[in-house]
């Protein structure tokens, strides 16, 4: 449900980043001073395969407006196969969220290597814009958490 006063709307966005590629990519974005909105908060996980769908739903429950997961590019996983499992899990989860009517685009997966500071920053800018265009998450939150 897009809101008219988008300028006012500051989304809450949780980004899960794998320790080996994407977290380092975010570090590179930082050291390269490539800005992206402060709405994005990063949680470090060892590998994208550590991200449980429960974590993503939990974020929405507690009021997140968008959740993004970043991991090593397929084929480059530090643990060799983790992101392949993560990819299947997220594909199915996202498809289910879409199925129950949650706006397409509230969740995203992006593969970001340690060298891709530019990509990390661009992805986050893009994602924040997307969530802003979607507006506040009203379809997945717990009413008790709405202040």
């Amino acid at each position, binding site marked *: 449900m897009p809101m008219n006063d988008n300028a006012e709307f500051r989304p809450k966005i949780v980004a899960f980043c794998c320790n080996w590629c994407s977290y380092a990519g975010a570090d590179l974005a930082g050291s390269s001073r490539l800005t992206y909105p402060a709405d994005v908060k990063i949680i470090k996980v060892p590998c994208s395969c550590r991200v449980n769908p429960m974590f993503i739903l939990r974020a929405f429950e*507690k*009021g997140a407006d968008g959740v993004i997961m970043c991991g090593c590019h397929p084929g480059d996983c530090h643990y060799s196969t983790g992101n392949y499992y993560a990819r299947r899990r997220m594909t199915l989860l996202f498809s289910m969220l879409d199925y129950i009517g949650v706006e397409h685009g509230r969740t995203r997966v992006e593969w970001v290597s340690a060298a891709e500071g530019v990509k990390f920053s661009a992805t986050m800018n893009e994602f924040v814009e997307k969530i802003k265009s979607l507006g506040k998450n009203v379809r997945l939150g*717990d009413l*008790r*958490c709405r*202040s």
Partner: protein
Amino acid sequence: MYKIAKENLPDLYEAIAETNTLYIPVKKAGQTNFEQWTRSAEVDIKTLKTVKSPKDAFFPQSENLYTCGKEGKKITITLEALTDESFVVFGMKACDVRGVEVLDKVFLAEPVDTFYAARREHGIIVAMACNEPELSCFCKVFGIDCTEPSGADVITWLIGDELFWRPVTEKGEMLTDSVKRLLSDGDDAAVEAKREEISKIVSKIPNMRLSLDGWGRDDKLERFNSPLWEDLYKPCIACGTCTFVCPTCQCYDIKDYDTGHGVQRYRCWDSCMYSDFTLMAHGNNRTSQMQRFRQRFMHKLVYFPTNNDGMYSCVGCGRCVNKCPQNLNIVKVIKAFKKEGV
């Protein structure tokens, strides 16, 4: 005795809702349950049994008790406000009303549950006689007359194209006064005829003649130790369906929920069928499903009457009979003991 044409019922709902919150059977996604009335709600007073009993109106499945807030290192506690506005529960059946009387025994006894008491004080029960009792009904076994619900503030009968309306308490009279402009005078004879008609159906339902011999106050240990339980519980999958559709089950759990801007301490229905029911630091006091299964029936048919002057905490509504996933139910339990002569 008053009456109102069925086609005018929406006006009646509207009128009641002007001064009260109105809970009424509403059909949503194919199922009928008591819900707060709105103009767009699809009211369904024809369905005999709502899936859930109306006990939610007095004892909601989940309710907040208080909220803890934090400012710096200071903690504030805000009690949830008690109900202070009147509400009407429209269309409760005789069994459901008895169900509330069972809850009264639990929540109005000392120490009084203030949340419940406030709701009882402000709640007005408009009961409705059962038009077509069903095969799964056995209310008569517990002395309930489904043709004329007792314990309500107003009793209604759906007869032909009219709803007959009889206030029986002061609260009922007051409600009646507030909607009197919509009511006309009714005829007691029509109601008596209807009751007769319903009684005939009741007499055809085998379970209405179920015998409670051996249950009640006297028998405890023998029944408790019966080997029958071991056989009866086996198909039970330990879900909470029977307890959650039951009008008398009163057990609840108290938990905390962190909303991010305060911690809510809430209570929610719990089920004695669950393995974590009354879980304590040392573990559970009932460790097997057999024990949990036995507890449910012993409580309803033995312990509760023992502690409450013979009042059973089953009202024979038959919801559990209809809804048990594996077709177990209290009737089968009663029959099994009868057959074995224990």
